[in-house]
């Protein structure tokens, strides 16, 4: 055969790479701002030990001290006189660690179960779906309280409970996406070329499922940061003296009318971070969530 249809593909197409022409970005300055805030929070959390800050446990100023023009006192001092800024930044470590690690564990576990259930169907699907539905039927707070009463409170048990809480959500997402892709004819074509189950799952289905499932990560991280805050408020969060955003709110709640900055500083930080995660997450979902192709 000779080449019969030169020029059929529009010449404007990029010559290589899987890039889509970017959809019209609306309010991209807002997304950039949110991404910037998230970057700042992450950077502060990672670089905390290098910053010239007082130790988060050390008394650095007067108890409940007003904000002042020094690095440690920029956001005031807490009930015991510890630097609010220092506690906020070290708190970012704990809050982000809990949110991100639990989400990632839930993402990996959920993708695994969802992939198997959606691809194999039958008894595997029945079992996975039953467990998933059962876990989703528990009110989240009740489940967390139940887990907290059984497990010894620490960062790792908190991560275990929160990832257990989110795994069913990711399982459902992955299962639905897997079913959508598994019925595509390229999977059948691969089967017919001799591909076994591991290859079908890892090379054909998974690469198509991961982007849409992963695009929910930011939103879930946001939800878990809030969940950690709620648990701290109930005294079941990250145990002191390790600071966390939720813990700071819990510490300051009694004095909210006289010293509102004790509560507002961590609360506004959580608010901004969760908002930013949601906005960035929405943009990611628009980009990757429902892409058919």
């Amino acid at each position: 055969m000779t080449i019969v249809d030169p020029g059929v593909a529009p010449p404007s197409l990029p010559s290589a790479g899987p890039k889509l022409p970017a959809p019209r970005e609306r309010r991209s300055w807002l997304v950039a701002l949110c991404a910037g805030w998230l970057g700042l929070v992450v950077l502060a959390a990672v670089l905390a030990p290098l910053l010239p800050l007082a130790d988060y446990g050390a008394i650095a100023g007067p108890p409940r001290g007003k904000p002042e023009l020094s690095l440690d006192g920029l956001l005031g001092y807490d009930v015991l006189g510890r630097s609010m800024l220092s506690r906020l930044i070290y708190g970012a470590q704990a809050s982000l660690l809990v949110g991100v690690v639990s989400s990632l564990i839930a993402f990996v576990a959920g993708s695994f179960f969802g992939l198997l259930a959606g691809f194999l169907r039958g008894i595997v699907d029945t079992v996975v779906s039953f467990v998933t539905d059962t876990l989703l039927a528990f009110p989240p707070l009740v489940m967390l309280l139940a887990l907290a009463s059984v497990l010894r409170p620490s960062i790792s048990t908190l991560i275990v409970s929160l990832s257990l809480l989110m795994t069913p959500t990711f399982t459902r997402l992955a299962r639905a996406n897997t079913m959508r892709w598994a019925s595509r004819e390229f999977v059948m074509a691969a089967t017919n070329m001799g591909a076994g189950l591991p290859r079908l799952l890892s090379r054909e289905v998974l690469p198509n499922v991961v982007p849409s499932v992963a695009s929910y990560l930011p939103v879930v991280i946001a939800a878990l940061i809030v969940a950690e805050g709620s648990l701290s408020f109930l005294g079941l969060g990250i145990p002191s003296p390790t600071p966390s955003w939720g813990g700071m709110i819990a510490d300051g709640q009694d004095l909210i009318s006289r010293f509102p900055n004790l509560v507002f500083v961590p609360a506004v930080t959580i608010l901004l971070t969760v908002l930013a995660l949601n906005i960035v997450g929405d943009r990611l979902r628009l980009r990757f969530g429902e892409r058919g192709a």
Partner: protein
Amino acid sequence: MAGTGEAHLLTDADDTVLSVHHLQVEYRTPGGVVQAVSDVSFDVRPGETLGLVGESGCGKSTTGKAVLRLEKIAGGRVVYRGEDLAVTKRGTLRRLRRKLQMIFQDPVSSLNPRRSVRELVVEGLTIAGRPVAERREAADRVLVDVGLDPERFGPMYPRQLSGGQAQRVAIARALAIRPDLIVCDEPVSALDVSVQAQIVNLLRDLKDEHDLTLVFISHDLSVVRSVCDRVMVMYLGRICEVGDVDSVFAAPAHPYTRALLDSVPRRRAVGGFTGPALEGDIPTPLDPPSGCRFRTRCPLATDRCAEDVPEVRSVGEGHFAACHYAEVAAEAPLVPAAV
């Protein structure tokens, strides 16, 4: 119509690439078990193109997929060069499947969107663990074979291809592992008419160049007429008529085949169709009519058609039909029941 029986099969199995006996495929649905294919037998001879024709839902695609065991076979035998695929073990099946390839209707859906064309076309070789150099060489070869410039199209991704180009890639992928037989499941139905001709011609050229045997599934009679050597007409999971393309199209012996041919538009713009339209809809496969399955829409149906399942029988040289009244149907002009 209800083609059971094997009168149309070759007696000498050495002359066939693929021989299907009493194939049955069932689907479990909320309404009960549907027999998508019931008691279908046919054989495919080396180097020929066998057309599978029928309206949607008649089981032609299911037959094609079941032959490659991409559908679960509920009964019957599928013999490929002496080995029964219906009962063969996983390892043997994997080896045999590489000789039996498939081209799908929707070319875009049949290509993994996350692979480049170059990766896609040699997927079979990758699965077989062939070395990179061989794969690269094969990719260039098959892309040139299907008329795509490897330099230009190799790095592209499926969404950058037109339907025709994507179907060429799918054909190249099937060719790359040097198959014996390719099942083409409506390979041009999703394409523009101008592109259809290109793909049909390409398939015909490749068939000659590579000594392929094709099973060509289509509802488009004109396409079937131009590419197939023999044709098998199906209705509700059974065979109506099998025979050389010329004799089936020139003298259809089954009322359903006649009706299909009559529903092709005339060449003149104001000519309408070549014959009366078929009455009614295809019955539900959940509860197919007794006896001949076509009887509910057949102008020639009698009480006998409700009781006896017609067997496939010879109605001429290399021409078989499953109708009690094949002789009448072949000669008398069909008067539609309603006129």
